[in-house]
């Protein structure tokens, strides 16, 4: 009997899927040409992309990087790509790069802002990454004063005396709250540093400076400019606004009527007016509110107003974080017998701040973009500098290259930060 089987014993070779159901063709049919309206849209979009790139790419790449003036630049392009070729004159960026980055900061001292900038990452790292040792947070606390000293120079004793004020406040809190209550401790912790800074710190700093001179060359604020200025204002604004924002947010959440009204009034006032009016206050009005005869420089005044502006927004961000905390955390802290400040300091704030980090990053992006407004009151941020550069005879007429470069730098900063905050948001979401 022969072995007759009705079932195939040898499998057929697998066939390739039909051309329309595989690879790039399938992808294109599904994602770009699934039906007639979609096909029309896709073709229109491709045409638009071609149209834009066809104009922009030759302009961007038929360019010259080395020239000392716009006229020279044009002749270089004409020589390289033929008469009538329109190309970008990136040479202006090449020529004025250091100015766009550092403003008029003395060139032999460029290392100072660079060191401050690099150390900034070391200071932020422990805040952003949990894995790093907690002891690094101490450096984060010292960093603002150190960066201030690096950027503006002068005597090291000045920032040290400012730190001393905080240390005194901390000590006063410890001593007084043991003696009386924590409420009195808080009052002492606020009053002691203020008295110290107002009446003693200056003299002590001068005295110590005469005994042990520790100083580096001072740089006047008027030399600050370019992206360094934007970053300085943005970072200082956010860093200082954090503690103020925390206090305002707590005040807004509080049951104490008067405290709440003051905080809400401040927050709503600042959020209701445009930043530019606050900058006008900085440039024309702020000196009037100080004791007669006080006069401090424009950048410092701008930083004060930017800080007030940012702290109102920061307060709202942190309030969001406080509201997002489960109620059980508040109740748990209460049931452990912690008083308000203890529970806030040990239980509530660490969690609320952690939830708020993505939004804090977003508000930093907003503030960083808003620092360009200082060009309107005459500071030399990148936009102010671009006007300045164009006022120069050599570069009179350069527009798109400068704006394009500034826009690109802002874009790179803001886009990477926003991606980072989205990543954080996703990471934090996995909690529940």
């Amino acid at each position, binding site marked *: 009997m022969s072995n007759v089987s009705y079932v195939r014993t040898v499998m057929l070779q697998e066939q390739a899927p039909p051309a329309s159901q595989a690879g790039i063709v399938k992808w294109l049919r599904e*994602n*770009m040409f*699934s039906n007639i309206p*979609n096909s029309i*849209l*896709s073709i229109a*979009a*491709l045409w*638009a*992309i071609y149209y834009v790139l066809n104009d922009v790419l030759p302009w961007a790449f038929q360019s010259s990087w080395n020239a000392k003036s716009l006229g020279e630049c044009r002749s270089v392009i004409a020589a390289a790509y033929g008469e009538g070729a329109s190309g970008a004159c990136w040479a202006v960026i090449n020529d004025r790069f250091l100015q766009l980055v550092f403003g008029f900061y003395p060139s032999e001292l460029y290392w100072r802002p660079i060191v401050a900038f690099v150390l900034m990452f070391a200071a932020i790292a422990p805040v952003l990454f949990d894995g790093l040792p907690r002891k690094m947070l101490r450096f984060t606390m010292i960093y603002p004063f150190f960066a201030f000293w690096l950027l503006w120079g002068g005597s090291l004793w000045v920032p040290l005396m400012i730190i001393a004020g905080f240390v005194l406040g901390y000590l006063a809190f410890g001593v007084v709250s043991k003696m*009386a*209550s924590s*409420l*009195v401790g808080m*009052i002492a912790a606020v009053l002691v540093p203020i008295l110290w800074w107002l009446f003693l710190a200056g003299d002590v700093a001068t005295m110590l400076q005469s005994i042990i001179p520790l100083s580096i060359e001072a740089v006047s604020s008027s030399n600050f400019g370019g992206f360094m200025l934007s970053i300085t204002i943005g970072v200082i604004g956010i860093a200082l606004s954090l503690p103020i924002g925390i206090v305002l947010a707590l005040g807004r959440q509080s*049951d*104490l*009527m*008067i*405290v709440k009204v*003051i905080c809400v009034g401040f927050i*709503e*006032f600042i*959020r*209701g*007016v*445009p*930043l*530019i*009016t606050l900058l*006008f*206050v900085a440039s*024309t*009005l702020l*000196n*009037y*509110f*100080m*004791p*007669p005869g006080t006069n401090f420089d424009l950048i410092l005044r701008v930083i004060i107003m930017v800080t007030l502006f940012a702290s109102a927004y920061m307060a709202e961000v942190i309030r969001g974080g406080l509201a997002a905390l489960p109620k059980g955390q508040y109740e748990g802290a209460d049931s452990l017998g912690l008083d308000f400040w203890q529970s806030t300091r040990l239980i509530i704030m660490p969690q609320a701040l952690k939830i708020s980090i993505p939004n804090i990053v977003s508000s930093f*992006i907003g503030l960083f*973009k*808003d620092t*360009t*407004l200082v*060009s*309107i009151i005459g500071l030399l941020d990148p*936009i102010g500098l671009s006007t300045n550069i164009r006022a120069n005879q050599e570069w009179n007429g350069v*527009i*798109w290259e400068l*704006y394009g470069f*500034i*826009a690109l730098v*802002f*874009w790179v900063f*803001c*886009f990477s930060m*926003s991606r980072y905050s989205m990543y954080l948001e996703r990471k934090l979401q996995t909690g529940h």
Partner: protein
Amino acid sequence: MSTITDPEQGGFRISMLLYDTRYRSITIQIIALIGFLLALGWLIGNAAQNLAALGKPLNFSFLGDTSGYDINQRLIEYNSQMTHGRAAVVGLLNTLLVAVLGCITATVIGVIIGVLRLSKNWIIAKIMTVYIETFRNVPVLLWIIMTMAIFIEVFPKPSDFRGADAVASMKLFESVAVTNRGIFIPSPIFGSGSMAVIAVFILSIVGIFVFGRWAHKRQDETGQILPTFWIKLAIFFVPSIIVFYVLGQPISLEYPVLKGFNFKGGFHMRNSLIALWFALSLYTAAFIAETVRSGIQAVSKGQTEAAAALGLRPGRITSLVVLPQALRVIIPPMISQYMNLTKNSSLAIAVGYMDITGTLGGVTLNQTGREMESLMILMAIYLTISLTISTVMNVYNERVKLRER
């Protein structure tokens, strides 16, 4: 045997202000109030002293003085012989003009881009993502300046339109002239009988609402659905057009014509206004698009599927199920974007558009030297606008809030 007695209830002692929770909050509030008043008093005292020393104590009478400067963009009658107060009103109207225009276009562009970003068409979705990320991550001031630069540098000069072999030509059937001095569009001239056309037009808009309510009621009673969109469209156009032709075309257009060095006639939209309007709209649209996208994504897929299971068609699913739920999420952040746009319109000063910041906070401030008064009024105005918008928002939020059990 010992008895447990309640601790003795003493009278009020000073230390209870600190240790007794009943009194402590009052203590804290009074201390805070005193501190706040002291700080405020210190600031005001300093300001009064400084202003007195400069010989310009707080005084608002400068608003009645002759301003002496011109404003080319104005909605109400104004010339340089009028007062600073009048100039401020002109500026305020300009702010509101650009804010309203900007909000409308930003919403339209933003909604379209937000919806297209969710499109299944890969390339369209990618282009919209690029648009959003480009506009969101570059400062709005830079966009405003760049838009202005495009208008001035790229668009042809009025003289380019002259002669037989003109370099530039007018667009849209010779009716619109796009020049680097602004855009000239035809303006309507109202002849006799035009009031009748306008009246019919207004009546037909009222008619649309009446018809809408009637159709709604009819649907509730009989279950029949009318093609309301097409009927409304017909009511919008047909009566007005019929009356327009019956009365012999009473409304005509005045076209801009090149005369001398510039165009005359028609309606002149100045560069500063258009650049500011465009830049603010495009910038804010990127944020609105994100809001719209997240609002649509916030409606869970189960809602769409349940609606489909009930037999609703895709169009009705969107309009009856998805949109009402998405709007609840979209509207609050959208309104705060409107607020941002209004506040950003103060950057008009960078392109020379005379808004309230440019008039009151700019020229008036510099001419009169009344920084304190000008800025106080300026901030009060912006604050009023913001608070009005946020009040409206709160009322709306209260109305659409989910009524939970």
